């Protein structure tokens, strides 16, 4: 019961948040929400199925450029190109997934690294799709009467929602659906199969789990969510260059799930909030210089911070923020009577606690 209340409270908080934030903070929050969709996907692949993938940026790009080509070049409605972005990315996931069958652990990590580079190379050399090194514009979301183009606002019963707010709510809706889906995945056979593969692949195979199919499904789900995230992200940014979908982006998502807590439901959300809000938080710190005035740049400071965060969390609290919260839990509960352990016990422990 208290869980449900907490969930409702959090949902209410999330819905009301845009009205309490300044414009720049709302932009950050929107990025966080959109990125969290991708992080949730990566959590399925890395947190549930235990596959190391550095290639997330590739799937984000796949979704983004699918949306761009369908929505921007062919004028397809957003109600179609957003799901299509997810589907296209999922198809790429289905292609990459089987590689995980042949390759174990570290080899897979390096191959996924290679996929990011190859993807960037293809994009840079396909100006028709990506606009070449200069980049291209991405279409705003237009679904029927809802127009997310720059400058558009939505009037809803006296409340004005600007463009950031519109993307925020759309992202939030998709994030909620994705999170619910991923959470319910754990209770299904497929989800438990992923956890089994993560723990001990040989044992899972012995139990009858179809390891190959499980891994491919994990890749497909992860890629699909990444595609949705990438499409929304690019649409919100409205302009992007092929070099943005790089290893750094992949690592940001990995950082998000590590900091948040791998394999947990709230992990990707918490982690995204930390990692993707980091640049604007750092920018507002007093000792960080303005852009272009020399000294340590915000970009470098951001990178250093989340590099250190990754190392710190993995060394000190591998279960991430969720693990930290878990550790604090005994502090909150106060037992009515002190623990009483008699110095001499007449019963053996087994008899005392049947």
């Amino acid at each position, binding site marked *: 019961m208290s869980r449900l209340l907490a969930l409702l409270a959090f949902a209410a908080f999330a819905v009301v948040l845009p009205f309490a934030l300044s414009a720049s903070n709302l932009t950050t929050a929107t990025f966080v929400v959109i990125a969290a969709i991708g992080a949730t996907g990566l959590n399925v692949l890395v947190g549930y199925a235990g596959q190391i993938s550095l290639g997330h940026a590739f799937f984000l790009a796949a979704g983004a450029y699918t949306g761009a080509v369908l929505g921007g070049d062919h004028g397809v409605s957003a109600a179609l190109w957003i799901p299509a972005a997810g589907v296209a990315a999922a198809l790429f996931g289905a292609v990459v997934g089987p590689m995980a069958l042949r390759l174990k652990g*570290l*080899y897979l990590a390096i191959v996924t690294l290679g996929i990011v580079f190859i993807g960037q190379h293809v994009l840079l*050399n396909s100006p028709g799709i990506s606009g070449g090194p200069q980049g291209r514009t991405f279409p705003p979301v237009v679904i029927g009467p809802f127009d997310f183009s720059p400058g558009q606002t939505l009037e809803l019963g006296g409340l004005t929602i600007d463009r950031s707010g519109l993307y925020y709510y759309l992202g939030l809706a998709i994030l909620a659906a994705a999170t619910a889906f991923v959470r319910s995945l754990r209770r299904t056979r497929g989800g438990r199969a992923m956890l089994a593969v993560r723990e001990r692949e040989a044992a899972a195979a012995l139990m009858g789990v179809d390891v190959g199919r499980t891994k491919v499904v994990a890749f497909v789900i992860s890629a699909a969510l990444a595609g949705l995230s990438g499409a929304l992200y690019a649409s919100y940014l409205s302009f992007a260059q092929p070099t943005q979908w790089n290893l750094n982006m992949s690592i940001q998502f990995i950082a998000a799930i590590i900091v948040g807590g791998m394999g947990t439901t709230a992990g990707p959300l918490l982690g995204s909030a930390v990692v993707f809000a980091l640049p604007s938080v750092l920018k507002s710190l007093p000792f960080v210089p303005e852009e272009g005035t020399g000294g340590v740049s915000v970009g470098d400071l951001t990178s250093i911070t989340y590099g250190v965060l990754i190392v710190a969390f993995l060394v000190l609290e591998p279960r991430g923020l969720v693990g930290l919260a878990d550790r604090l839990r005994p502090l909150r509960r106060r037992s009515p009577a002190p623990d009483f352990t008699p110095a001499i016990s007449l019963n053996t422990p087994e008899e005392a606690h049947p």
Partner: protein
Amino acid sequence: MTQFLQLVFEGVSLGATYALIALGFVVIYRASGVINFAQGSMLLLGAYLISWLAVDVGLPFGLAVLAAMGGLSVFGAGFHRIALRRVVGQPTFVLVMITIGASIAVSAAVEAIFGDNQRLLGDPWGSSSFHIGAITVTWVKFWGIVVAAAALAVYFSFDRYTRWGLAMRATAVDEEATLSAGVPVRRLHALTWALAGTMATLGGLFLAGFPSAPSHSLGDAALRAFPAVVLGGLSSPVGAVAGGMLIGVVEVMTSGYAPSSLGTNFYAVAPYIAMIAILLVRPYGLLGVKPAERL
């Protein structure tokens, strides 16, 4: 024909440097099963350290190189002690992610400390060269091959003929058993990381040589050594050398001969494509051995 021979030389030179970098990976992997994603940023740090010591501090170049090697050794061993030793026994994924985190932090720190501008390496060779027939051999590249060969020879004899080398191989096979045989395993790991730091410095030195220069693209160049390691098989030093040479030659040949239909800068992704192709056929690399797992 001349161009072909010239490219072969360039390929061998680049390959030698990649072999050196790849060996740095293999050394760590053989001793602890960890792929050190931070090798690239250690290389970057090494190159910048040499540059700083030789150009800004004014040390003689040889001394600068030695000092940088020492510095990176300390850094490597220190990193192992601070971060990795505490997570002994955790799954490989955790260890790998720690090195990735360190890699980001170090690369960004180097950029923050040294700024964005290109620097001079401070080496005495510059762009000087000599000629063998019609091929232009730059001194930097020549010394790159010589030093790489020497370093590899030193490592191989260390591995084969000394007790520490034997201990390293034993640790890779079964750490607990090695520990109970009386080997100071922790010191061994520190030594391994120090060695890797040294190799990273040397690799950085020659990657940053003419016509390149210490800059942040070095980190990306080092990432191309990954295919070299993987191709050759993560656990095989000979494989690292073979993989390094192969990747170096492939990269230079594609930059020379690739048709423009494959896109500009195809040579940057050619190593990865080659790697994926070979891995699909031989999942443990050309010379890698499928690890026997005890269930």
